[in-house]
């Protein structure tokens, strides 16, 4: 099980130190939510931020979610910046398999993002070609309600679909994961959790991460 940290919730002012502390506290992956103001109604940050951090944290997995329209134009840029995983929204591109293939050929792990509004049928046909499926608990860029029940159902169905096909991508959950709901998500079949506010706002980041990783039913 992997506890990843959403970079957006870190203090940008001292991004390097904040993230180093979190990684030292036990987070093996760092999650970057890139938002272009169109796929998602917020502009967060682009590759320059990731490139700067790659130098600081050479051994951490950079798990990048591209909340951008036409991600195919950004694949090379983000791999160059140091992404290890690149996840895209099926709605953002006209030919999803082509983009995933491009990511894989460039040596990166491809992933897909399932918003509350995305049907699993949009990604069923590419399950054999992804390493990560990100299930969003909230509508990205909107804040607002957590679609917990919907997410749990999707995770369970996804596990079955993967078993049927003999594949086992990481099932990652993002958008309001906390020690309160982590157990339920993992029990449903998730094995990667993105934690943002609940870790970065914690005084002791190491303890917050350990708490997340010690949910019942979790083996590392």
């Amino acid at each position, binding site marked *: 099980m992997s506890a990843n940290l959403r970079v957006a919730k870190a203090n940008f*002012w001292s991004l390097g130190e904040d993230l180093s502390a979190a990684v030292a506290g036990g987070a093996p992956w760092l999650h970057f939510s890139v*938002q272009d103001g169109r796929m998602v109604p917020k502009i967060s*940050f682009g590759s320059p931020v990731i490139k700067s951090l790659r130098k600081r944290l050479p051994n951490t997995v950079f798990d990048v979610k591209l909340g951008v329209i036409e991600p195919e134009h950004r694949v090379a840029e983000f791999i160059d910046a140091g992404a290890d995983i690149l996840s895209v929204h099926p709605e953002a591109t006209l030919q999803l398999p082509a983009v995933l293939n491009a990511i894989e050929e460039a040596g990166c792990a491809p992933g897909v993002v399932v918003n509350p509004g995305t049907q699993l049928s949009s990604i069923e046909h590419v399950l054999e070609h992804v390493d990560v499926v990100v299930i969003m608990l909230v509508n990205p860029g909107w804040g607002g309600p957590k679609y917990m029940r919907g997410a749990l159902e999707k995770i369970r169905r996804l596990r079955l679909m993967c078993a049927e096909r003999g594949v086992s991508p990481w099932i990652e959950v993002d958008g309001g994961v906390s020690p309160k709901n982590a157990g339920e998500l993992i029990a449903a079949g998730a094995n990667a959790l993105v934690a943002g506010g609940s870790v970065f706002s914690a005084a002791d980041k190491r303890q917050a991460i350990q708490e997340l990783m010690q949910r019942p039913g979790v083996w590392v």
Partner: protein
Amino acid sequence: SCLSCSSVHSSLLRLWSRCMSTTHQPPPPPASNDPPEPPAKRVKPSTESPSPAPDSSAMGPRRAYIAPSVLSSDFARLADECQRMLEAGADWLHLDVMDGHFVPNLTFGAPVVAALRPHNKGFFDCHLMVSDPHKWVDEFAQAGVNQFTFHIEAAGSTAEALEIAKDIKAKGMQAGIVLKPKTSIDDVLPVIDSGLIDTLLVMTVEPGFGGQKFMEDMMDKVKTARAKYPSLTIEVDGGLTVDTTKIAAAAGANAIVAGTAIFKADDPEAVIKEMRQSVEELSK
């Protein structure tokens, strides 16, 4: 609602007065520039003679604004980098927001700016290379931006540009308008004539692409604007170095955006000082 507008406005005023009370720099300029000169009286066909050109020779040295661009900094150490710039004598911090659509690059948005704000007393000069800039006025006002500069090409029309400028001012920020190299200076004049614009930004490279050379032919735009508006802040961005600053200043520019020329210099303080001197001596 009115209540939320005024609370943003008053919190920005408090923020502004905190910025103005910074002690480790000479007193910064007042929040708004002098209003631009009213347009010259229209010459009637019959007997009236044209009004005399505004006499700028009586003005003292023009106020210089040197604005390092944070895009050239190390994002993992944004705190130290911005503080380093202020201590080196920067007047403004120039923030290049790019949305990957209006220009091909995607840099950063309001969350990054909002994270900088509590730690830095400087003037945040924000250049928005985004489609539909009106959509972002509120968010950047709340992030604590001091000047919101939008593209005339993104506004699409004089009417829309005026609406955006009005909204920017209503939210307590200074309004800037910027034009790309291929856009005629004529497209921004009606907007500046309204009196709502504090700063004109003339791009001296194609926005969104790195490593370009300073386009000297853009100086015609600077000269035209300077002749019409003696008190307007005229900013230039793209390929500015110690040498090209002299050219820009001589044309009438008084605000200089520079990235690598300042950030990557061995002695940023010396570079800033020299640029400021060029503006004060050459800009007229």
